[in-house]
């Protein structure tokens, strides 16, 4: 008995370093938000408890609530575009022989480029003086000469999403290709013997077989879209005129530029709880769906 306890102590010591690092850097700060969210705090002084004031303020904070619209647009874009590109290209790539490896690694390449480089380079491309606009003007195509999407309230969000999508869809491609490779080849042969055409094979064999990958893709995108930050901040900082504000840029400005850390905590807490509850609802739906099969 004594020996077992000794063994268990030893084993637990192997786990503790990772646990403690995670506890101090992730769990404790995350939990402390539940306290800071109910305080007036500038980050430096002692936080002062102010009850539900922050949450009451949030309900009339139209800058913040307006951001929801942009988060939803962002989510819709990423639910559709990278999936169609990634899955569509994966279906094509897996049927062209060995050269798929070269194409795959080139399409994946932007994924390893940092958001700052991708975002800033595309900002230059989007600029009317040094970018695509002037490129077309010099070619004599006037229609695109005024192309300056980052300065346009109606285009800026899509322009930033385009870059994030360029950076990310190669990752989806690789994911889908590995899902496709795991589909049992016998299923395809059987379908072909039955005389199914390629559309029927896609609908009845391929898609059902890779459904788990597609579902995890949806779950990931929905969660990630609530806290998307890098590309919006790097390319527009929420501008022009607040047209591209998302939750995270509002939180960032509130906390680190206005130094309203208490209110910023309340905003983060709300967004994180929103994202987590959506996550658990989706997991539940996913589980139900699996049980029905």
């Amino acid at each position, binding site marked *: 008995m004594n020996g077992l306890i000794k*063994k*268990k102590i*030893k*084993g637990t010591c*192997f*786990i503790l370093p*990772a*646990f403690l*690092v*995670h506890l*101090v*850097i*992730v*769990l404790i*700060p*995350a939990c*402390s*938000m539940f306290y*800071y969210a109910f305080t007036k705090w500038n980050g*430096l002084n002692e936080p002062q408890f102010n009850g539900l004031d922050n949450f009451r303020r949030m309900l009339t904070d139209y800058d913040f609530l307006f951001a929801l619209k942009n988060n939803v647009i962002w989510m819709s874009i990423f639910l559709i575009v990278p999936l169609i590109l990634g899955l569509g290209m994966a279906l*094509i790539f897996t049927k*062209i022989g060995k*050269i798929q490896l070269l194409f795959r690694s*080139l*399409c994946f*390449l*932007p*994924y*390893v*480029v*940092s*958001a*700052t*480089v991708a975002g800033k*380079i595309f900002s230059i*491309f989007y600029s009317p*003086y*040094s970018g*695509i606009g002037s*490129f077309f003007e010099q070619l004599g195509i006037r229609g695109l000469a005024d192309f300056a999407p980052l300065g346009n309230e109606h285009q800026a969000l899509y322009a930033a999403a385009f870059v994030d999508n*360029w950076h990310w869809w*190669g990752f989806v491609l*690789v994911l889908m290709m590995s899902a496709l490779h795991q589909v049992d080849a016998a299923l395809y042969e059987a379908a072909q013997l039955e005389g199914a055409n390629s559309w029927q094979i896609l609908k009845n064999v391929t898609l059902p077989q890779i459904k788990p990958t597609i579902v995890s893709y949806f*779950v*990931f995108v929905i*969660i990630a879209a*609530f*806290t998307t930050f*890098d590309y919006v901040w*790097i390319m527009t900082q929420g501008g022009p005129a607040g047209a591209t504000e998302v*939750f*995270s840029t509002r*939180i960032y400005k509130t906390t680190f530029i206005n130094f309203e*850390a208490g209110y*910023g*905590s309340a905003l*983060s*807490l709300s967004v*994180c709880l929103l994202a*987590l509850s959506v996550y658990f609802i989706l997991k539940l739906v996913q589980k139900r769906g699996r049980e029905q099969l």
Partner: protein
Amino acid sequence: MTLMQKKKRSKAVKLTVAAFITLLQIIPLAVVLLNSMRSNEEIGRQLVGVPTSFHFSNYVQAWVQGGYLQAYGNSLLIGIGSSVIVLLIVAFAVYGLTKMHCFFPRFFHTYFVAGLAVPTFAIIVPLFFFFYKVNLVNTHLGMILIYSAINISFNFMFMYAFFEGLPKELDEAARIDGAGEMQNFVYNVVPLAKPIFTSVLLIVFVNTWNEFLFSNTFLQQESMRTVSLKFYNFVGKSGSDFGFIYAAAIISILPIVVIYFLMQDSFVEGMTSGSVKG
């Protein structure tokens, strides 16, 4: 048209589409690479073009004026520090959970997996002011701690699946021979786990090299900035010196791109294993 011809034609169409999309995908990076070797006047005249002569001066100037030596030092220190720490602490944790007896194994397992669900924005606000109080803002150590912590959960899941699949007989044989846990870890587990350890090191290193939100918040001193962050600030200051900017972009991504092309397999496998982590 025979079936063979039809199949051949369909393959040719697919090949063309694949080549076309791949070309579109790499054009932006190709433009960056070409422009990094052109002069400002050439770029000003036309955005897309082949360099008439190789302007290496762009690189020299970007490296020197941008202060990239220091930035490389910062990024290497933070990246290597974080990836080695993540590898060590996660490998030990997984080893303890899968190969040894320990207290509350289910709790620890659930804890690490659940860590994946914590959004970055749930920790950055309190963490910043906590680090500010204990003087970890603007330090390498602070960044290494953050990057180590936020990379634990994903790599835990990645390594756990692998360790669980290792044969138990080896450990038992080693223990009968009187080997301690550390000896067993070093001589039995490490040789088998080398590929997965490489993946973990690469993933964490690349993640830290490219990370933006935490580094932009916690590293405000010019001298502490990482390579990606340096580029972010460099572009704003350099106006229309586009030759430098494109050269600086190449300098910023080069190590990662080289690692990617040299070690593609362990890299891609690690990044896409079972999870959709962007």
